[in-house]
């Protein structure tokens, strides 16, 4: 028990109100509004963050459940001066329009590429075991929890494919 949540390397005290979701903690309590609220019900993926290396919907979990955890948000992946490879690829492939689903897509894709590298299978995988191939269909399946109403999917997949092919994320 540390009574803190570490976000992008900085420890923050836990909120007093146990009803505060991790998402609202990030957005309202510590001012990291890069993580978006699209539905608050685990249906859209806009709030995706990486907790202890695993991507989750931050609206579906209470901040109180993350004592001692380490959270990475979009702000922790890169900055306008030093964007991550995925952030840059999204920019170059026009993998967004309004930009509201974008931090969630990028956080999700960042962790998803790690899952692929660790050979976690998905519904699109040929086999449950062995090496996972990085195909468009694998990426689409694994990213289907991140909605984009602007309909930038085709470009998002192209951006992720490029980074996946480059072996960096």
């Amino acid at each position, binding site marked *: 028990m540390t009574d803190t949540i570490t976000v992008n390397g900085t420890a923050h005290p836990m909120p007093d*109100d146990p*009803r505060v979701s991790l998402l*609202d903690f990030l*957005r*309202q309590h510590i*001012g*990291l*509004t*890069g*993580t*978006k*609220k*699209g*539905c*608050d*019900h685990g*249906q*859209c993926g806009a709030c995706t963050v990486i907790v202890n290396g695993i991507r989750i919907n931050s609206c579906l979990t209470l901040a109180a459940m993350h004592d001692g955890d380490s959270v990475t*948000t*979009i*702000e922790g992946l*890169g*900055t*306008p001066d030093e*964007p991550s490879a995925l*952030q*840059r690829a*999204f*920019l*170059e492939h*026009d993998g*967004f*329009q*309004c*930009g*509201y*689903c*974008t*931090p969630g897509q*990028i956080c999700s894709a960042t962790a998803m590429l790690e899952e692929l590298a660790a050979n976690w299978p998905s519904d*699109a995988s040929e086999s449950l075991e062995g090496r996972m191939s990085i195909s*468009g*269909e694998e*990426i*689409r*399946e694994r990213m*289907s*929890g*991140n*909605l984009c*109403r*602007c*309909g*930038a*999917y*085709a*470009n*998002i*997949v*192209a951006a992720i494919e490029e980074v996946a092919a480059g072996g960096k994320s």
Partner: protein
Amino acid sequence: MTVYFKQDEPDTSNRLDGMKQGVLGKSLSRVEGLAKVTGTAPYAAEYHIDGCAEGVLVTSTITRGEVVSIDRTSVLSMPGVIAVVDDEKMSTRAAQGTANEAPMQGPRQVCYWGQPIALVVAETFEQARDAAKHLKVEYREDAAAPLDPHAVEPEEQEDETVHQGDLAHAMAEAPHSVDVTITTKGHASAAMEPHAAIAEWDGDKLTVHASLQMPNYNITELADALDMEEDNIRLISRFVGGGFGSKLGLSEEVVAAALAAKQIERPVRVVQSRQQVFQTVMRRSETTQRLRFAADGEGRLTGFGHEALVSNLPGETFAEPALQSSHFIYGGENRELMLKVARIHLMTAGSVRAPGEAVGMPALESAMDVLAEKVGIDPVELRLRNIPERDPEKDLPFSSHKLAECLKQGAEAFGWQKGVRKPRQRREGEWWIGTGMASASRSHSIAEAKARVTLKADGTALVETDMTDIGTGTYTILAQIAGEMLGLQPDQVLVELGDTRHPRGPGSGGSWGASSIGSAVYIACNAIREELAEKAGTSEDRLELADGRTAAGQTLADLLQGKDISQEGHYEPGAIEDDFTAAGFGAFFAQVRVNHYTGETRVDRMLGAFGFGRVLNASTARSQCIGGITWSIGLALTEALEFDPRDGHLVNCDLAEYHVPVHRDVPDLDVLLVEERDGAASQIQAKGIGELGMCGGAAAIGNAIYNACGARLFDYPMTPDRVLAAMPE
């Protein structure tokens, strides 16, 4: 200085093509893109304002009646609760697009299930949400509230009605005729950013951060709702997380936040929940459409009929204009068109991306596929044979017309197999595979627009307007237009949008944003060029500017001698609107797989070819197109609002139950931008592309389903249960 220009004549000078910077039309990355991909772009709810209280709307649990009493004491003692607001000025529906007056007010009168009736304000969001759930409300319910559009006598929209010749006779005489009824379900915009506002008062001055498409109209709507002078209001919408029609008109949380902030003398933030957005903003009306065609032996139309029944609440002027492109896309001298609206008590119907053609074109293009089969010709050929020379009803020339090119180039690029088509030609395992096509058409709109352009003494430029960028690319294309005109790289042009302190833009809607505001920026830049030419001792038409220098090598900073030049461009469409029929045209081609046993449809590939005037940025234009095609997939296969027939409440009011396409539903998409210059469309020869990509695409999928498996469906969306029921054998 303001330069006013009213466009009465087509502009065929294409002067932008003669400029030397060479940035317009290029695939440039979005200028605000880094802010979006790094999470640093602030959306409406994300401004930090000291002392801001949190408001949560309370919505009605009856369909029609009256709020008799609200028991404030039921929540005021709860921790953190500050106030319960039920001011009679609160709005109960979102304004329709371009309403320019207050939306419906008076929260005590309930007209639909889910209507906002009060706002609970507390110190924190969690406290407000909890209190809003516990607020005790007493209603008096009215008995009769019609909910079924087929159960009431509808009103005819007379300006849509066309009786020309004798369609019934033409059908009786014709060797080929079609008479089909096609239905579409209601749709939600479902923009990813929920509607949100933060209101703050300073004396009698009100500042609101909100998520709105049209601040130029919204400011008037808000002033009217609050009985204020516009000059005392500032609306800010720098980043809008998608709109698709849902943020055209002032929505309920804006008025509620402003009233609450006044009442408690503190800033107030109100963010609608996803469920509230679904119910309180806008639905696209369901439609029932009858299509009738008479055709000669070669498939040339001699008769054309399109009637549609749509619905809306009493008191709403909007009626889904499903016939919009049917008035001109195909010929046929005997014509019968009629639009009727049923008054029912479901939530407000209004604009959802491509109002009209989004549902009218899929119906029309499904019926055209039936006609092609009856005549026994290739469906592409059927369309080509029926492109009229002039508007068949108004007898006007088309401003430009790229349907034939789009059909031909699209067919070629897709690998469309020409000829008479038969269903069930290809099967792989459980899957039937087939292809289909459809035409695209979206009537063009253009609006008055103002923008200020300042060429700074240091040789950079600033563009200011209250126009918005809702994901459409406005920031980038305005930097490109100004850059092209003033000889600057776009990164030397700062574009400031979405703030009513700036000159009034046209707002983002009806695909008119880029061509309208682009024309205003063009006019302002032109005036700046004239001043520069004088300083450079030449004439404007000889002034060549690139990379901050004249052809003779003088820098802009040298010419400016330490002084800015600022010009406001004021564009207004004139006679061009009346002298031409203008539209964007295109063609869709789709290949689908349909499962023989489950009726599931998967889109394997899809291509759209579109002609929409000058392309301002090939990358953002293509993005608009793939967005539209993605919506076509949703419309064809999954999207449907489902209302409870007993009380009219929206049953699937969230993103788990209302099925927008997800990554795996959307294959790689091909887009052909069929370049053209349409001088009668706008001063910069551009039309819009935000909506064309979904105006007919669903029919390409529906027609491909028939070609694949032989199931001919007339009801959208074509869900597995419906496909199975229509599957032969």
